[in-house]
């Protein structure tokens, strides 16, 4: 056995992977999207896929994902290269003839969990991946569009936001609502009749949040080891709900860390945008 199994320290990404994996249940179906550029790829794809595989290897052997056009792709052994042919030849249970089937599965409520990264997240879990700036004028910063993130928040049972904490990202009110969280301008999911319950968790590099508040505002659920509540607040442009006691995010076990490093992503393909710094 590798010596890594004895290491108790872990990277922030490994902590996030373990925290997300703990939320995934046997037999559930998860939606993994795509990430533009290095860090976004790690957050939107790398961490979720590693978490999915970790769940499969531990408590949830029948957890499945949909990734790209692959339903239940084999995750035992992530290839080193990720050019087109890797995806074309990837073994999977299904690869529907028409991307409409996948999006229908989302809007018909057939997904349990999804993973979201976004340049702007606000107090109510609204997400923006479209444009930054004032309405009715050309945007100051044009982002990528919408993809299926709108559908994730509208229809999936437990969307999990995966984004690094920063004041620029965690804003009081997103400039543009790509994906509706728990409320916006008095309109709620209920008045609109949206089928899904909205975002459930927000897993960041410093802390984990949920929305377990009467009005669906963001609440600090746990801080990562070595991170203070003050540091968390300093990295947000709004104040989340904070209970009198904020627990620490559980550290992954040495076995879990070893599985991630040795079995799930030995080539570091999934963490290309990761600093991989060790936590204390």
């Amino acid at each position, binding site marked *: 056995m590798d010596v890594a199994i004895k290491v108790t320290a872990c990277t922030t990404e490994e902590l996030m992977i373990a925290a997300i994996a703990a939320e995934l249940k046997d037999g559930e179906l998860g939606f993994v999207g795509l990430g*533009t550029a290095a860090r976004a790829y790690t957050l939107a794809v790398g961490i979720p896929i590693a978490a999915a595989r970790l769940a499969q290897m531990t408590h949830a052997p029948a957890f499945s994902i949909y990734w790209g056009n692959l339903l239940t792709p084999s995750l035992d052994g992530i290839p080193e290269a990720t050019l087109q*042919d890797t995806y074309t030849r990837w073994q999977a249970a299904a690869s529907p*003839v028409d*991307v409409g089937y996948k*999006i229908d599965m989302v809007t018909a409520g057939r997904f349990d969990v999804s993973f979201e990264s976004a340049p702007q997240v606000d107090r109510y879990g609204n997400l923006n991946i479209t444009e930054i700036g004032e309405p009715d004028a*050309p945007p100051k910063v*044009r982002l990528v569009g919408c993809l299926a993130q709108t559908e994730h928040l509208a229809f999936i049972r437990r969307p999990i936001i995966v984004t690094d904490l920063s004041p620029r990202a965690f804003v009081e009110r997103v400039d543009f609502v*790509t994906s509706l969280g728990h409320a916006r301008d008095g309109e709620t999911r209920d008045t*609109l009749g949206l089928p899904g319950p909205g975002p459930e968790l927000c897993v960041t590099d410093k802390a984990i949040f949920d929305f377990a508040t009467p009005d669906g505002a963001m609440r600090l659920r746990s801080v990562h080891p070595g991170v203070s509540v003050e540091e968390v607040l300093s990295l947000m442009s709004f104040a989340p709900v904070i209970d009198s006691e904020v627990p620490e995010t559980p550290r992954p076990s040495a076995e879990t860390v070893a599985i991630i490093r040795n079995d799930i992503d030995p080539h570091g393909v999934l963490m290309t945008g990761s600093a991989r710094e060790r936590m204390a």
Partner: protein
Amino acid sequence: MKSKLITAAEAVSRIPDGATLAVGGSLLRRQPMVFVRELVRQNRRDLALLTWATTLATDMLAAACAVRRWDGIYAGFFRLGLAPNFRRAVQDGTIETHDYSESAMVARFRARAMGLEFLPNRAMLGTGMETKSPDAVKRITCPYTGKPVLALRAADADFTILHGYAADEYGNVQWPIVRDSDDIDQMMASSSRRLFVSVECIVPHEEIARRPALTYIPHTLVEGIVHAPRGAHPTATDGFYDEDEDALEDWLEAARAGRSAEWLDANVRPLADHEAYLAKLGGEAALARFDVTEREYA
């Protein structure tokens, strides 16, 4: 059936300035670059684009000042970052954007393919997209539940350009059995008015007729079929060749530096056609290195 083989130059010559153009492919796969480069050569202007997840096709047309409007789900460069020319043009107000989520864009193309004026959709309720495009997004009331639902207007492209795999001369386009179809090329074809498809290879009709279930674009939808091996370069065609990452980075470097116009003047406008483009890249000798190892079509 009638032969529909034409050149890319002939196909593009039928697309006027100001046309609404559906552009196929997704991310770094099957961008219809042969038609895009020809649109640049023929100096087309004022186009309205309808896309799925678009990358180089839209960024190149933006660099050529050919675009006035974009409707789609994504414009960027996948793992390579954002789309510099598109982004600048949107930010300076030259390109008007109309954003749609995936189910919404699918609804718009399906509506047209079904001959309907609209399809209902709930995904965009309460989002910024609901108010951004009032001409194509209207809130109505479900006659069964009394709840709100959006009526999304059918996508109506004057022309559609796609890059496909193999076809016969009549325009029956087939996909390989193992493929990556995370795009809406088939839906775009089904909803098209005037459709041009470039393909990697032309095969005898008998080969098509042997396995008709693999035909994803039938001849009845096609106005012109263009034989263009490596037609998606520098993006990939699944089952044929991978992305040319160096070429993509070369484009992006020029784009980020604001030198795309010069890049087009040097690398696209002077070349007569796709054959000249491939020759400039070093021909098969240089390009064979992108080939995938297992191919269904020779």
